[in-house]
């Protein structure tokens, strides 16, 4: 199923999506482009290469209330706060970000216990993926090709969006996506030529030049386990690391969180919020024991978690090569070259 609309009528599309329910889309402000909950149809933009922050916030918000309570003398009763009520659309996710959802699913829905908050949002959210058109060049920090992700991969999206000359092509991938496109009656039918363009773009996306090395996930997992005990290597790599949480907070596949009770006078919420394995007190136990007191141990944990442990546990690399961590690292630590060095050690 292929539909299209002129780029000039993008606002109309947004208007229609907004009328259906909550919509997350990339918005440009004075600091760059980021996903936001859209209020006005004029806000979203498709003119960007990559968003600064990852779109994971639509499913895994930085801060999410789990339970509401009111402190009482006898029994304090807690009430679970259920997920979103409205079906949501997230528009404009790049293929690597779409891929991250499947990686996160393994954790949040696996291990024998489903996370109801993640599940609810996954169930009710339509993903509109957004392929990288040929003229948009990677910016030097990303390496999604290393992770075998094409610049115009549509897997994982419900609807796949691609720019073509003055048009926006919209391909319905899943039943849900096709249903959504069916509702948007103002869209035009895509032509055969559009179809060919789309197929070619998807194929071409596979060869898009980003930083690349030949990554064999299982071999990397084993190699990193072997390198794990090489403290000298990790100390050198972590030399500049200031142990802030930037890399994990902007990462589309970092899932660690903390839970805390926030009480104001008597009313409170039990809330979960992003936490980072890079923080000193992440693993600090109440006894005072900290298994990872040193910076290099924490950096090692992060790298190994993504490129070794996750592979061993779930069979996939927990990284999509979006390059955000590299781009925003205050001291220019680069996960790509670090892993390449470790694997080739």
């Amino acid at each position, binding site marked *: 199923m292929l539909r299209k609309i002129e780029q000039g009528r993008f606002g109309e599309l947004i208007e229609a999506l907004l009328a259906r329910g909550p919509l997350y889309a990339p918005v440009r402000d004075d*600091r760059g482009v980021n996903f936001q909950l859209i209020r006005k149809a004029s806000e979203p933009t498709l003119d960007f290469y990559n968003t*600064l*922050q990852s779109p994971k916030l639509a499913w895994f918000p*930085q*801060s999410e209330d789990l339970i509401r309570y009111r402190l009482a003398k006898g029994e304090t009763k807690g009430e679970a706060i259920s997920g979103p009520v409205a079906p949501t659309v997230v528009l404009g996710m790049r293929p690597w970000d779409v891929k991250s959802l499947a990686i996160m699913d393994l954790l949040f829905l696996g291990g024998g216990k489903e996370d109801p908050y993640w599940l609810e949002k996954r169930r009710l959210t339509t993903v509109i993926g957004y392929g990288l058109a040929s003229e948009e060049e990677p910016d*030097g*920090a990303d390496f999604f090709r290393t992770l075998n992700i094409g610049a115009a991969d549509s897997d994982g999206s419900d609807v796949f969006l691609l720019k073509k000359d003055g048009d926006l092509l919209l391909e319905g991938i899943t039943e849900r996506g096709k249903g959504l496109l069916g509702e948007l009656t103002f869209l035009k039918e895509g032509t055969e030529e559009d179809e060919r363009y789309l197929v070619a773009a998807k194929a071409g996306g596979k060869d898009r030049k980003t930083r690349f090395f030949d990554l064999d996930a299982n071999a990397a997992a084993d190699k990193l386990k072997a390198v794990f005990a090489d403290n000298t290597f990790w100390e050198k790599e972590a*030399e*500049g690391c*200031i*142990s*802030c*949480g*930037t890399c*994990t*907070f*902007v990462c589309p596949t970092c899932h660690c969180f*903390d839970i*805390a009770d*926030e009480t104001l006078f008597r009313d409170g919420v039990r*809330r*979960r*919020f*992003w936490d*980072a394995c890079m*923080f*000193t*007190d992440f693993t600090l136990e109440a006894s005072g024991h900290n298994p990872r007191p040193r910076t290099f141990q924490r950096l090692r944990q992060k790298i190994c978690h993504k490129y070794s442990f996750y592979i061993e546990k779930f069979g996939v690399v927990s990284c999509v090569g979006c390059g955000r961590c*590299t*781009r*925003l690292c*205050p*001291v*220019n*630590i*680069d996960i*790509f*070259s670090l892993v390449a060095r470790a694997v080739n050690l």
Partner: protein
Amino acid sequence: MTAFKDIEERLKEKAKDLLEKGEVECVFAYGRGYDERHPRPYVAKTKEDAENLVFNEYCTFNLARYAVKEPRKKIAVAAKGADSRALVQLIQEGKLKRENLVILGIPAAGMVDAKSGLTLDEKTTGAFANPVVYDVLLGDKLPEAKNSPYEVLGELEGLSGDGRWEFWRKEFARCLRCFACRKACPMCYCDPCFMDQSRPRWADKSPTLDGNTMYHLTRFYHLAGRCVDCGECTRACPVDIPLYLFHKRLAKDCEEMFNQAAGMKLEDKPVLVDFRVEDGDEILL
């Protein structure tokens, strides 16, 4: 102005020399990152390591942040203007010993923040071209900036109180609580930081606007009279909160009220652990 390339050469040479003679255990400087525009903080421990040192306009990091973690070692630190002020401030605070430090002074102007592409000058956080204290100077002294580093505050100061609050509220709301600002700051060496304390809990643990506000205001206060305007917090911030503006304003207040700028003289005492009977009550008005 000495070319960056020449500074780099001298830096390598000096580092090699110091390491070879065993005068220092290590040299904190800059090394190559994943590309030219993205150097990394680098610790040279051997004279072979010294070959890997680089210096270019993107070497903005304030290495005092690493030096403060090694108070007992004899170390050499590459220090630009503000970085040397940070070292001085840390010496004042008893965190570092002057005799343990070899300060490799680098007069530098025209440093560039790779992320924003902005050139660092007195309008941002590059007011001091020359190191204030050093053992060796790796380039020729530069003329100091003509404009006051505080001029940039004019715009915010011109706003009404409500306008300023609106400005800061929006900025604090962006905060991710990644704590890159405090981790990048050479003056933020508290362990544990007040934000990591659970009793008392000074602010929400979760990233709420109120908690963010509390965090930033308290951090600003903790840096009052200590901030050397190196701008690391602002460059480290992944959401580009202009923290330096608040720090600058407090530095300006301290200069006006107490007649002292942070990290300028080894014999000074930080303003908030000091007082003068003549301070007078006017400062409270």
